[in-house]
């Protein structure tokens, strides 16, 4: 029986973690990338919250016994307790990393500053075929 193809969510999270640590280890030593359920108030700052929100199978074959491709969508939110600029700066880096994997980005205009928590939100989507290399 054919299994679903690659665990691309793990690849995305691993890449984000690696490259954000590379870029911000000195400036934001507490930066973390999490995939937990919805955060009310992160314990470390900045926090990058990654959520795979949609995974739609596409391009079905007559054989119908394997997943040929999916349209994958991630929502990634960056939280910071110091400034909106920090959150935006990390968010821009997130977008660059996602673009390196050919995701199309939508930076949502929503900004929160509730209880001194600043947040930027981005959604990233791309078609992923079974043998694609991210």
């Amino acid at each position, binding site marked *: 029986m054919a299994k679903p193809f690659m665990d691309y969510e793990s690849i995305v999270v691993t890449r984000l973690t690696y490259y954000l640590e590379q870029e911000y280890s000195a400036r934001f030593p507490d930066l973390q990338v999490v995939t937990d359920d919805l955060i009310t108030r992160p314990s470390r700052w900045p926090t990058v919250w990654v959520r795979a929100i949609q995974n739609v199978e*596409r*391009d*079905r*074959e*007559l*054989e*119908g*016994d394997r997943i*040929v*491709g999916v*349209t994958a969508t991630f929502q990634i939110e960056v939280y910071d307790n110091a400034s909106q600029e920090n959150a935006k700066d990390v968010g821009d880096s997130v977008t660059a990393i996602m673009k390196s994997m*050919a995701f199309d980005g939508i930076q949502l205009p929503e900004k929160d500053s509730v209880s001194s928590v600043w947040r930027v939100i981005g959604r990233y989507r791309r*078609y992923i*075929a*079974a043998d694609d290399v991210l």
Partner: protein
Amino acid sequence: MASGLKSRILYRTHNDETTNWAGSWTMLIRPKTLPSPLGERNSIDVSTLEDEQEVTEPGRRASVTMSVQGAMEKDYLDAMVQLADTKLDFLVLYGTEGLGSIAKYAFTGFVDVNPDEADADEHLTMTANIAVSTVPVKITDDYTVTTTDGKAFTVTAAG
């Protein structure tokens, strides 16, 4: 009634004894759609000046090139390139068990393959263009098809 899932097209190198479709067959491509191997039958106008409207009798079917689109995969693509200009037998199977329980059509022809347009939001596809060189015959109840892996098939005459 059945869906089109597991409708398949198989091939083998042409057997001179074209009325015997038994033997070993291989899947040509994993299709996304499978066009008909039969052309549309035309009509011949047989009306006379006495008829108040044109009347027709059945003519013959139009020639067919089956353009079968499927996933572009190296193994299938390489095999089809090797088969260019080789006379082949084809077997089209209809039925969701993948063995032609609804219908089986056999014919002889040639295949040529081309990569399709590459698109960022779709997987790569290729199209096998099959020239149908003989009139497809329906052999649904005359032969039995078996397979173990869904790629190689054995066709035997029904007892």
